[in-house]
């Protein structure tokens, strides 16, 4: 599957090869959806910095390696349960669904008993079992137009997770979807897809956890579609700890109806090159969202957080806080756009991006955007970049705290604002310990 001119993967050829054996190949609507995905991808190709949306993120690493579809290489190394990290507190009611290189792994998963009205199953299974139930959502919340990587996922998605929470149902314990990568001794590419549907007045907490278990290069191209119906609330926590040679591109597409709430948080620690995209559409009056994130990068890591919040109806609100810590030669990118459409009056939109540069060779590129077409709004954004505050450091040192400890204390304090809104205490703890581990103080 090689291109003549470089080591790049020819994804179109992969599609031609695989189309007949992809799940739901016999369903006309799904085939059409995949077809439109590959057409979109063909039209744009892999994005380059010449595209404004990818100005600061170069996908060159993807062009150097030929990634095989994950099914073509030998079955992934069997992973013992003990090697499967989790963000959930150990207990009896652990609901975890594990995808190894993008495919459902029943041995490692434990779905457990679900409350009435809640269903949780692998995507491939859902396509076989109840394709009609997916048709009006899959590829409808996340439109692949103009988004080549999402389009590629749409064309090649093989497996993933479907979580449905019925009207009024409450799933108080978090559900964890664990994406395990770096299991093969070949470079593989996979395109997991999540579909999360919350009916009116329901509640759920979803954890998406990406973990790489080796230094092997691989390419995870994930997409998540979320619909939160009237009065429902979803807490979505993502932790990205992919392998050090991995490329991780993920987009999360959220559709909020009237009075719906989405509380999102992402922590990015891993991968050589990563991009975390969040696109929220506030489609109903009074809908509100939080889109927060933190990224901790070192070495030559590159981390891109790109968000688009679209206010389409009156009295919608969003708060967005992204905090980054960049060491060595790492590079952070933040592109955040708040868009207020005509008629979306009484909108409240606030965005903040802050980056700490810990090294002389680290770099931050920020592009916070406001695009506003309604007059009765209150919108703001702020962006800062700089080193640790010398005075604060001095204050701590003057009180006998060693420099290294003082620095990590200040970094933790800096990140707090983004982490604070993770409302589930156990998860908040788990995230803090990840941060502490990164800082070497855990």
């Amino acid at each position, binding site marked *: 599957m090689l291109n003549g001119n470089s080591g790049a993967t020819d994804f179109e050829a992969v599609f031609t090869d695989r189309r007949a054996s992809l799940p739901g190949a016999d369903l006309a609507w799904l085939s059409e959806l995949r077809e439109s995905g590959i057409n979109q991808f063909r039209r744009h190709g892999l994005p380059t910095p010449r595209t404004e949306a990818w100005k600061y993120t170069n996908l060159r690493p993807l062009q150097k390696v030929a990634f095989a579809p994950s099914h073509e290489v030998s079955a992934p190394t069997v992973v013992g349960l003990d090697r499967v990290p989790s963000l959930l507190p150990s207990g009896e009611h652990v609901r975890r669904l594990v995808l190894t290189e993008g495919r459902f792994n029943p041995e490692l998963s434990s779905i457990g008993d679900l409350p009435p009205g809640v269903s949780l199953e692998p995507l491939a299974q859902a396509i076989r079992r109840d394709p009609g139930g997916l048709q009006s959502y899959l590829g409808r919340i996340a439109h692949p137009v103009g988004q080549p990587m999402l389009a590629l996922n749409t064309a090649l998605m093989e497996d993933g997770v479907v979580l449905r929470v019925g009207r009024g149902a409450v799933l108080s314990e978090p559900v964890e979807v664990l994406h395990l990568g770096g299991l093969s001794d070949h470079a593989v590419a996979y395109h997991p897809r999540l579909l999360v549907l919350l009916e009116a007045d329901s509640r759920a907490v979803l954890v998406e956890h990406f973990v790489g278990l080796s230094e092997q290069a691989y390419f995870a191209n994930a997409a998540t579609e979320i619909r939160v119906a009237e009065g429902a609330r979803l807490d979505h926590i993502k932790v990205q700890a992919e392998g050090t040679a991995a490329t991780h591109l993920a987009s999360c597409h959220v559709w909020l109806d009237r009075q719906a709430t989405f509380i999102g948080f992402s922590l990015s620690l891993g991968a050589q090159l990563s991009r975390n995209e969040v696109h929220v559409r506030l489609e109903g009056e009074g809908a509100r969202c939080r889109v927060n994130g933190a990224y901790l990068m070192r070495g030559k890591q590159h981390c891109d957080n790109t968000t688009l919040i679209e206010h389409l109806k009156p009295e919608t609100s969003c708060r967005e806080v992204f905090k980054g810590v960049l060491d060595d030669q790492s590079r952070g990118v933040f592109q955040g756009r708040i868009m207020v459409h005509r008629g979306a009056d009484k909108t409240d939109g606030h965005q903040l991006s802050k980056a700490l540069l810990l090294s002389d060779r680290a770099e931050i590129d920020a592009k916070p*955007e406001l695009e506003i077409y309604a007059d009765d709004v209150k919108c703001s954004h702020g962006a*800062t970049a700089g080193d640790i505050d010398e005075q604060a450091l001095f204050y701590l040192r003057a009180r006998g705290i060693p420099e290294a400890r003082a620095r990590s204390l200040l970094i933790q304090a800096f990140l707090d604002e983004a982490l604070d809104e993770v409302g589930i205490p156990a998860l908040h703890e788990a995230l803090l310990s990840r941060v502490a581990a990164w800082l070497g103080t855990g």
Partner: protein
Amino acid sequence: MAATVETAQTVKEVAERKYKYGFVTEIESETAPKGLGEEVIGFISAKKGEPDWLLEWRLKAYRHWLTMPEPLWANVTFDALDYQDAYYYSAPKTAEGPKSLEEVDPELLRTYEKLGIPLREQEMLAGVAVDAVFDSVSVATTFKKKLHEVGVIFCSISEAVQTHPELVREYLGSVVPYADNKHATLNSAVFTDGSFVYVPKGVRCPMELSTYFRINAANTGQFERTLIIADEGSYVSYLEGCTAPMRDEHQLHAAVVELVALKDAEIKYSTVQNWYPGDEEGRGGIFNFVTKRGACRGDNSKISWTQVETGSAITWKYPSCILQGDNSVGEFYSIAITNNMQQADTGTKMIHLGKNTRSRIIAKGISAGRSNSTYRGLVKVSPKAHGARNHTQCDSLLIGERCGAHTVPYIESKNRSARVEHEATTSKISEDQLFYCRQRGIGEEEAVALVVNGFCREVLQQLPMEFAVEAQKLVGISLEGSVG
């Protein structure tokens, strides 16, 4: 008596100069053939009696221009420009103007009145054909004399090519290279007028310089090229444009302004732009595609841009500072007001290269009617700019539900000791503020003007006194018809 003699002398001098440099009298009947091509550029260059190197430079720019695509990234829409359907060199339009103020559009006169512009100046602004505007001439003379005493060179760029070729050659294109962007490159190929200022070492220019007082510049050209050089330890303040709407028939304005501040020098550049914005339906109006850039070459130098942009159908300009010298300072203060169908995409670039360089950006955007206003700015800190500091504040005000206000800042920092801060807000005029004014008997339009002036205060304060008062009135006038 002496004054009369002096005036008479000046008029004579001015007349002679016009003749000598062939600006009005000689070329009046001559216009370059329509369209753009190497012959036209040769024609312009020959008319100006330019040296070979300058012609070469123009041609190099033109050849490069042919290879450049139209810049389409700005948040503005318009039909593609037909570069061949225009004249690139023609005599100034003094002769074609109205014969007296009676022939001038009464709407325009009402605006002048509101701005409080004296009758004589009204005539000049409206393009009324007058032989010599005596007030201005005498003012100009006094100016010239004073400037000459301290050694400041202030003349048209065409004149400078003749009289100070070494300075022009050294600095022209050194800040905005001929291949910079499509519009600047076109300007490099066909520029016909503009100002040249050189302030010698240690001189503090005794007065505000202004195109307005430069006799030959009564008709500002379509492709203006301005070059200002402040030598070590000098200071100059330059005013461009004026608050009154200018009569003009060119649709495309592609000016280039280059500023060079050497060690310890300071340049303050203020602009009030009020070109014809087109009618309420967006027909007509000027396309103002301007490239302005200043280089703080020396240590401790400073460049400050202040702009009040109320006119033009489309404004596309990003006055920038390249902070090369250590401890150099760049400032950008901007008010952009759009009404009806106007579109503005404007902002600044601050490129921090030297140590302890500082920049400050305050941009206020006001959109009304069906207009769109975008702030687009870049703050870039290079790895060597230790201790660099930037603070950016962008505020947008929306009046009416059919306009748009956008903020697109780019922040790129490669130095950890640099501190970069950006904040932006968007809101509408608060009902409370309007109610408060109305309660006290202030009319609605007046109240809006009052609130908007308050919103812009930080920028208006940066304008030289002469401009500030008129600019405040202009803010109100630009928003007429936007409420109620």
